[in-house]
């Protein structure tokens, strides 16, 4: 760890704190942070996940294959397109269903929309108030009207992408096993393309804004896991990859990522054979840096993010970089769609049954769905590995390393710093509590 203890470290040695943040705000879902410091030593530290577990894998049993994506989308409102996509990929792989190139483009376009939407929500609604010492974006709508309006406008555009493709962002409608049931109109796509092209100006200003805030210095060697595609940046496509230089076969992902339950969390924790690892935007940028679109690479340069960046606070910056990439990619996909149509299409039919895996990069990291489908087309078993669950151990580990370096500060500041670190991970706790079937065979 590169952080140097401050000159007041001496004082910190004798400090005792009990820090309890009940129901951390501005994160998705319910969690508490509990830290107990006695004489400068951490006696107790945990991120308690108190979200109600929902038992999706159990619920899905006995349901029809063509209901699965509809049900599993409801794991999370924010990353509904990701859960839908992972679910569809698992079903399609289990049943030998193929989808058309146009359907693939449309799904990937919706995926870009969701990545943008989720990142904008995190950056503007959840993170930004920290920098202004405010509790939410609401006071900023008055004190920094233009800035708040810019954030709202970018988020609105992202939602519009999902709405044009899928009917709405929260729980998209038209994405089904075998393809996409709705062909957007040309003028809708053209309008979207123009708005996206115009949004680079706001993205630039967003970058300028976030680069003006100090980033806490905190480095710690860590393993980053994300998908990596043969071609392009991994959002919808790709195979699991570790920054410790090895690829992981999709079929072995559930074995490499060991999940285990802890008594203080309704979400499981996870580790690899090397221990703690991190997933999410920073992991993706680190693992796919060379695949970034030109504007995104330039953004990375301006933000000073180069692989391997091990500072978890840089996850916010990685999200900004991905916003540039997703915008550029979305424009390219719309251009491709306009070349050929889009035309109304039929959807691919099931050819068999069995077990299938669907892996995607949700905004918060690698998302894994695995289903077994019977010959009657019913889901027999399901297993999901959720990004935030994979990050929980990393968050606790980081807190254990980070808190001792800031012990000289007043308790209020430590509490704020701890919340900021947790928030930088962009945890999605309602997702993380829908895990996981350990008994999958």
């Amino acid at each position, binding site marked *: 760890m590169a952080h140097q203890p401050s000159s007041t470290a001496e004082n910190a040695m004798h400090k005792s704190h009990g820090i309890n943040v009940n129901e951390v705000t501005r*994160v998705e879902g319910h969690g508490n942070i509990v830290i107990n410091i006695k004489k400068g030593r951490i006696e107790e530290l945990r991120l*308690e996940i108190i979200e*109600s577990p929902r038992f999706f894998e159990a619920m899905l049993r006995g349901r029809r294959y063509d209901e699965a994506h509809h049900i599993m989308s*409801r794991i999370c409102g924010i990353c509904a397109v990701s859960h839908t996509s992972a679910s569809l990929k698992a079903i399609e792989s289990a049943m030998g269903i193929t989808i058309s190139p146009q359907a693939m483009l449309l799904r990937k376009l919706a995926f870009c929309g969701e990545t943008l939407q989720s990142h904008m*929500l995190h950056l503007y609604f959840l993170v930004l108030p920290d920098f202004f010492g405010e509790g939410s974006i609401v006071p900023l*709508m008055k004190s920094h009207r233009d800035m708040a309006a810019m954030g709202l406008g970018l988020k609105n555009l992202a939602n519009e992408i999902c709405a044009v493709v899928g009917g709405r962002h*929260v729980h998209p*409608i038209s994405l089904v096993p075998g393809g996409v*049931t709705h062909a957007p109109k040309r003028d809708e796509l053209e309008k979207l393309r123009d708005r996206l092209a115009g949004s680079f100006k706001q993205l630039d200003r967003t970058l300028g804004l976030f680069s003006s805030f100090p980033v806490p210095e905190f480095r710690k060697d860590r393993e980053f896991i994300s998908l990596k595609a043969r071609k392009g940046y991994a959002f919808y496509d790709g195979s699991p990859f570790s920054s410790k230089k090895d690829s992981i076969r999709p079929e072995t992902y559930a074995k490499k990522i060991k999940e285990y339950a802890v008594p203080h969390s309704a979400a499981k924790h996870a580790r690899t054979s090397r221990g703690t690892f991190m997933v999410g935007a920073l992991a993706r940028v680190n693992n796919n840096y060379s695949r970034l679109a030109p504007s995104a690479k330039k953004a990375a340069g301006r933000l000073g993010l180069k692989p391997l960046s091990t500072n978890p606070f840089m996850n916010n910056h990685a999200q900004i970089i991905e916003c540039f990439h997703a915008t550029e990619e979305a424009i390219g996909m719309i251009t491709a769609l306009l070349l050929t149509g889009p035309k109304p299409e039929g959807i691919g039919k099931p050819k068999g049954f069995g077990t299938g895996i669907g892996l995607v990069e949700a905004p918060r990291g690698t998302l894994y769905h695995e289903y077994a489908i019977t010959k009657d087309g019913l889901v027999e078993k399901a297993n999901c590995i959720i990004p935030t669950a994979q990050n929980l151990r990393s968050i606790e580990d980081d807190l254990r390393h980070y808190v001792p370096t800031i012990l000289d500060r007043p308790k209020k500041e430590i509490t704020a710093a701890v919340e900021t670190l947790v928030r930088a991970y962009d945890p999605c706790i309602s997702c993380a509590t829908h895990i996981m079937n350990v*008994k999958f065979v």
Partner: protein
Amino acid sequence: MLKSVPVAAKKPKLAFFSFTCCEGCQLMVLNCEEEFPGIIELVDIVNFREAMSLRSDDYDIAFVEGSISKKEEIKKLRAIRKNAKIVVALGACSSTGGLNCLKNRFPMEEVKKAVYGKDARHKPMDTIPARPIDSIVRVDHYIHGCPVTKEEFLSTLKAFLLGKTPDVPNHPVCVDCKMAGNICVFEKGLSCVGPVTRAGCKAVCVTYGCICWGCRGPVDDPNMNAHGETLERYGLTADGILKSFDLYGGYRIYKTGRPAGHDGPPAVLDGRKRHA
């Protein structure tokens, strides 16, 4: 139904609470990007954990999303009811129990074991059958849907601000579907619960190429006999289509063994497709 709205006179305080759910309905509220600056001129939002640090027990209208599936949630919900002048169920999980009730088909111990294995004994995994909030407290108004629509949230809020009783749509999705100019999904060889499902969604699922999944629950007095005849005309059995009711009608089925307005036996699966 609401008789008078005591909050219209001054700047009302709004609070948002979330129980067992995906938080997608809160997100639909946050998706009112264009309206947000206007909304905060008219109301004070004093509780919105997903988006704000502020927390207060002093509020007029509580929007509650999510179903109740833990004992602790019952206590919290009762406290909200005590504090709020108006309680609004926000979305399917809260108003009908929603998809969460699919787990009620299995014994709770078995569900816990299936997901958490031997660690199912840990306290955070405690669970009770999922239920709508009106099975615990009195609810003044319902905004249906999975997720709710922005428009319905905004029109509800507007009604409260004007001292009016907000509308709850009570016509079937078929009406919305006709107004949207859609081809009936039965004509496409699919089946659908739209004829008995509460509208207000502009039949958006059918417009985007799918069927009505029934997320808003049945209308107040569903004409199941006529629906049965429609199904027969298209070669379907009522039993078969009942299976689709338990996606969103799970709580009623859990309590009574059958969906709203139907007195037949519990459902079995049929072989109809859901997409073209």
